[in-house]
């Protein structure tokens, strides 16, 4: 099927990884605005400075869902410092690129992740 998105984006859209909520999350991050069409929420479970579990919930277009899914896959099992080094651009690259109109608004998954790490550090004084 021809698509405006890469095969990798469509794969993550079709079979998103790590969807859902972590009830007793150590850190929660959220970016976006529903009236602009995108909200991304990231939940973290952290043990010994390592991301033990990460889940997402997203309201948004195909690229918003795919970038959220990809970022969770990229940081699962990584240290917080490694996760903090992941950028929106790196997420888009890992998906073999996004259409130009989607680069700004629907490519915020790393921001949501960083927000969740910030929330974790604030809560736990780290």
């Amino acid at each position: 099927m021809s698509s405006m998105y890469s095969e990798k984006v469509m794969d993550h859209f079709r079979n998103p990884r790590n969807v859902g909520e972590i009830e007793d999350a150590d850190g929660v991050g959220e970016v976006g605005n529903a009236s602009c069409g995108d909200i991304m929420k990231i939940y973290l479970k952290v043990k010994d400075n390592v991301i033990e579990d990460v889940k997402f919930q997203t309201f948004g277009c195909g690229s918003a869902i795919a970038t959220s899914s990809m970022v969770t896959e990229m940081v699962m099992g990584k240290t917080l410092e490694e996760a903090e080094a992941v950028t929106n651009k790196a997420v888009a690259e890992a998906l073999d690129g996004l259409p130009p109109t989607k680069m700004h608004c629907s490519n915020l998954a790393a921001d949501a992740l960083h927000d969740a790490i910030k929330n974790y550090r604030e809560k736990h004084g780290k």
Partner: protein
Amino acid sequence: MERIYLDHNATTPVRQEVRDKMLPFYGELFGNPSSAHSFGQEVKVPLEEARQRIAGQLGASTAQIVFTSGGTESDNYAIKGVAFAAEKGHIITALTEHPAVLQTVSWLAKKGFDATYLEVDSKGLVDPDDLRKALRPDTILVSIMHVNNEVGTIQPIEELGAITREAGVYFHTDAVQSFGKLPTNVDELNVDLLSVAAHKIYGPKGVGALYIRKGTRIDPLIIGGAQEKRRRSGTENIAGIVGFGEAIVLAEAEREEVYERLTLLRQKLVQGIGERIPEVVINGDPERNFPSTVSASVSHVEGESLLLSLDMEGIAVSTGSACSSGSLEPSHVLVAMGIDTVLAQGTLRFSMGRGTTQAEIGYLLDVFPPIVERLRKMSPLSASKAC
């Protein structure tokens, strides 16, 4: 996989009969109708026959039909043409117009013309009293579309046209979505200018026309070789024009039958969505809606992700209008109708056509509810709800 096309307001497939009529003009009938020799003269007759067919559908004379490159050019020509001839003045349009009208009016407003954008009610209708109040002594043009491309609302053009005529002001309507689908007699509609396009009625892309009432003061948009009686220069798109002429005759022949069929399909679709998916709003006016179009706003999910999911099931639909896909702003039509901006983000437009079947709508109604459920489960907006 058999694909299902439910985006007929964006464009339609060219009918076989139309293609067959067009092909000779890409072969032996290649002449330029402005040429005096036989190669030119032999394509002049089919050009004028096509013009007769478009004029006939509108209840107009052939001298009042100018062929263009499509609906967008016709809209630009009507509005800029009247504005340039008047040199200054006030233009009235509505907030729910197609961008081809809205952007043209706002461009003229930047160039020194005055513009008023009429509001619409929650169904998308312009209030004739609002038009009456907006008319000024210096108003030169009113432009209100016949059928809205995103939601299907049918404006009361006859009434709006009568008010405008009484004020001695020109009235333009973009009839791109209604031509060949609803009656569009220019005298009954009280219009002075009317835009149409071929590719919405199973004709080719790249051809349209503007009806211009006799005596209308309008400057040409495209000047050069004096084709179309100096009103639209450029060698005519003969193949396209011939295809347009064929398409309108075929559309008119089955117009009422297609309307009845679409009415039943629309009922099935609207009722099915209502029964199978909670929290969906159907936009538009149930009393005055063109039956090809169903605009549905689905809570807690975003439209493009619905579109992609349906595409994966072989069903082609649109979010709002095809022109604005890629834009992150909610639809200007839905915003003008007062739909909540978050709900507007979850809007899909299903637009059916002459070939749409009950079985296709049945298949859509089977695959759509689980798609909505899956995306709602992913959405933080519905996290607190068990869905």
